[in-house]
């Protein structure tokens, strides 16, 4: 018996990680950007003093009743449409019953068998080609109310736990994928693209620090072993509070499951679904619950709410509000503006504001590659450093285009142009004013000639080297030209010196 086990273990040890297919599905909770809560008129504003944004409905007072917020329903439909989901013509509300101190009614109003959004999909790709483009199918997306927050005394002095019900009743859309992702990188790409879409269509601010976007990952492995495919037990990793945490935890978990399988050989049939958490400090997943506590939520239709039907006209009207999605913009920037996929992605990933900024600059300066380079580097650097959004960037697209026009036409060389841009940002000046402030003047032909002649005369040994065939040495003279006159265009100086030396 022992030897049989031993040999099986040895056989598993010979399996390489490259024979493993990682299988990942995601569940994402998105807080919809409504003014008021899902079933009452309390504000959803983040950060108010505890329990100041509550009423008898969201605190579950006896006798209070919920009334659906239509804006939440519309935002859910809008999201569903952007994610290619079937939209339910009739949807209903169900109670998910469980006890928790920050769940005031003892049940959560959710959607069980008739979610507002049915099957859909989201296409993901990597601009650098790190993985093959993939279609991630969506199982469903349903509306539900958020719970409150429990604040426990961490001092271990046995203080009371406190409950803040401000968040209670905030509308959430829970988006559930099929287990279609095959790596942690794909999962991250999915989350990134999903967030981008949600922000593009304006249904959520997706602020992860404030909990507007929360994700859980489900992961297991399919291993080719002994002529068959073996699945490892499924693990759900809860409360991933950043995309980086999602990617790292899933990467870690895949490896952990593989090592565990090599050690013990446990499969999905041997072990129920396990819940684990991500410890960001130690970069490991840790066990939270052994088995899914056979959670019986006793779902049943909420008798306080009536089914909601949505007409074709209403859906069409919502569809009309959806402008071009990120994928369409990437295509547009590649095809119409001739950008490389990577460059298009850099701009599109920053949000709709930067796309519009780029288009205006590119259209006006007439060179989309230069526009893309400058925006991708100079503008983004500034935004990253300042933490501002593009709408607060000090240089208007028209001014940026003016500047780039001069670069394109060689009136300004790159280094000087960057000085000009910095001046425009710092002093909010126009291109012309910034140029004047920096004392930049075009150097006329005669002056350029005299500069070049002076350099040749003062450095005969360098001139000799050039004439002897060391053309590169001209660079030393060009560098000195800038000291004589900072406005001297290095390209023109170089050409003229070579011409004087008869080369």
């Amino acid at each position, binding site marked *: 018996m022992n030897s049989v086990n031993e040999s099986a273990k040895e056989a598993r040890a010979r399996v390489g990680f490259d024979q493993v297919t990682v299988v990942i599905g995601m569940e994402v909770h998105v807080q919809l950007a409504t003014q008021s809560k899902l079933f009452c008129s309390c504000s959803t504003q983040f950060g108010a003093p505890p329990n100041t944004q509550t009423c008898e409905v969201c605190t579950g007072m*006896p*006798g209070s009743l*919920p009334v659906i917020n239509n804006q939440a329903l519309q935002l859910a439909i809008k999201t569903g449409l952007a994610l290619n989901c079937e939209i339910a013509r009739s949807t209903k509300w169900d109670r998910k*019953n469980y006890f928790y101190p920050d769940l005031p009614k003892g049940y959560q109003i959710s959607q069980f068998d008739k979610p507002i959004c049915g099957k859909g999909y989201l296409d993901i790709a990597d601009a650098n080609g790190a993985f093959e483009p993939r279609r991630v199918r969506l199982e469903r997306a349903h509306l539900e109310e958020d719970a409150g927050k429990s604040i426990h005394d961490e001092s271990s002095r046995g203080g009371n736990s406190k409950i803040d019900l401000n968040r209670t009743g905030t509308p959430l859309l829970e988006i559930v994928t099929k287990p279609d992702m095959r790596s942690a990188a794909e999962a991250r790409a999915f989350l990134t693209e999903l967030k981008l879409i949600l922000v593009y269509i304006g249904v959520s601010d997706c602020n992860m620090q404030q909990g507007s976007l929360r994700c859980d990952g489900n992961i297991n492995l399919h291993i080719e072993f002994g002529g068959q495919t073996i699945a490892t037990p499924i693990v759900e990793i809860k409360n991933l509070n950043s995309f980086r945490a999602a990617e790292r935890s899933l990467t870690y978990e895949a490896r952990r499951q593989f090592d565990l399988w090599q050690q013990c050989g446990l499969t999905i049939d041997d072990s129920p679904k396990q819940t684990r958490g991500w410890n960001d400090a130690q970069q490991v997943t840790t066990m939270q619950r052994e088995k899914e506590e056979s959670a019986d939520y006793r779902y049943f239709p909420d*008798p306080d*709410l009536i089914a909601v039907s949505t007409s074709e006209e209403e859906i069409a009207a919502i569809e009309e509000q959806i402008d071009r999605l990120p994928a369409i913009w990437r295509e547009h920037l590649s095809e119409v503006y001739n950008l490389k996929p990577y460059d298009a992605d850099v701009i599109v990933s920053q949000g709709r504001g930067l796309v519009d900024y780029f288009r205006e600059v590119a259209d006006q300066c007439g060179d989309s590659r230069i526009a893309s380079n400058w925006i991708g580097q100079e503008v983004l650097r500034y935004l990253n450093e300042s933490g501002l959004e593009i709408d607060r960037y000090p240089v208007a697209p028209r001014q940026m285009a003016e500047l780039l026009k001069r670069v394109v036409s060689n009136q300004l060389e790159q280094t000087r142009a960057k000085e000009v841009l910095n001046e425009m940002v710092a002093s909010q000046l126009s291109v012309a004013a910034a140029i004047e402030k920096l004392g930049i003047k075009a150097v006329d032909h005669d002056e350029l000639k005299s500069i070049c002649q002076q350099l040749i005369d003062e450095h005969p040994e360098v001139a000799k080297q050039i004439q002897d065939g060391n053309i590169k040495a001209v660079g030393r003279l060009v560098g000195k030209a800038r000291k004589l006159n900072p406005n001297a265009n290095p390209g023109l100086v170089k050409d003229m010196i070579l011409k004087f030396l008869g080369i």
Partner: protein
Amino acid sequence: MEISNLGASELVSHLSAGHLTAVDCIQYFLQRIEQTNQSLNAFVNISDTALQRAREIDARRASGKPVGPLAGLPIAVKDGICTSGLKTTAGSKMLEQFVPPYDATIVRRLIDADGIVIGKTNMDEFAMGSSTEHSHFGAVKNPWSLDRVPGGSSGGSAACVAADMSPVAIGSDTGGSIRQPASFCGITGLKPTYGRVSRYGLIAFASSLDQIGPMTRTAKDSALILSVIAGHDVKDSTSAKNDVPDFTRSLEKPLTGVRIGICREHFDEGLDPEVESCVREATKVLESLGAATCEIHLPHTPYAVATYYVVAPCEASSNLARYDGVRYTYRAAATDLEQMYCQTRAAGFGDEVKQRIMLGTYALSSGYYDAFYLKASRVRRMIKHDYDQAFGEVDLILGPTSPTTAFSIGEHSHNPLAMYLADIYTVSANLAGVPAISIPAGISASGLPIGLQLQARSFDEGALLQAAHQFQSVTGWHATKPPLYQGPQT
């Protein structure tokens, strides 16, 4: 003026004509409560602002300013209906100290009409019961016989009207909780169509069945109150948008041409012969008023009680989950969360409530849902279909409200099933959502009132009130008072 002989409608017209001040009126009833409540236990809480409100209304009227249609009328409200600033317990230890920060919509409407909430009436805990024996604040006694139950769960509301402690009471009816106590106490009780009256502020027992309604001496008084409390409420998604007529205006229409169906299934075994003969007599009265009667069938009636006792506990098990010791409820001392939940709910709820929570939790559990909740929902649709069929042939359905007269206190305490069967004729209307009324139709040999039930099409409360009023125009049962509480002789 002899207030004790006046119903709500008459009080309102005397108040309006200046024959009576709101202060005199409220003082009369406050005094009645003081004399009587100790023996009946009908009220659990008396408003300490009622007299002040009466003064304000008198002053307003005296200065010629407009007053509402119920100006100065005292109204008792079942303690399962939220009253802002006035303790609302639903008959439970769990809510012993609960003071709602808001008014139920119907309370707001009554107050806006210048009615005066005089106090809160005792009830079976969370409206679960047919006898008002299951209150944390003690059993209510039947004014006709102190060793009898007043019916339930709105037993306090029924008893207080019967004993002349308030001209009007508001009750709630989930499976008969307005009609059966009205029948046991010899008053008029109306359960409106589901959705007719807002449930906002009614502490939920079974949300798809609960409905608030008036309990009064006469159908005319019920019409007056219903006209004020009915109508769509944006705070209750299940409240209907149907127009609300003035129900007092169609009362005098004769019954000529009205078709009344006698429900065959309501005269099966279990019906007290004395109740049966009384209902047969009442049928003759209605015929003499011009109504045409015929026998009809509601074939799924035998399944109604079983269906009700699945649907109602399922919803209740979820509705009562919020009483967990965390917020406004009673909280038992405990050292950890689970213990707090368990101890709080073990000590805060009475046995009947715990029994129904367990029934409902079981019936909704995975593996049992289809066999219980889903099946019950299907039978419920069939019961509703029975009514649709019947109302194709008749305008009203007539039968007894309860199979018996008021039973003795403690009689069913060891046999809950017998108690559940007291609801046999009333639960169907809740399951189907149709309106129904109970009116006094006789007195038994032992001196206990007997009730007659009429049911109508959804939103046709007008037909119920009309028939009831016509009946009361030619009979005197509604004016017969319990011998113990006849008030000062005139």
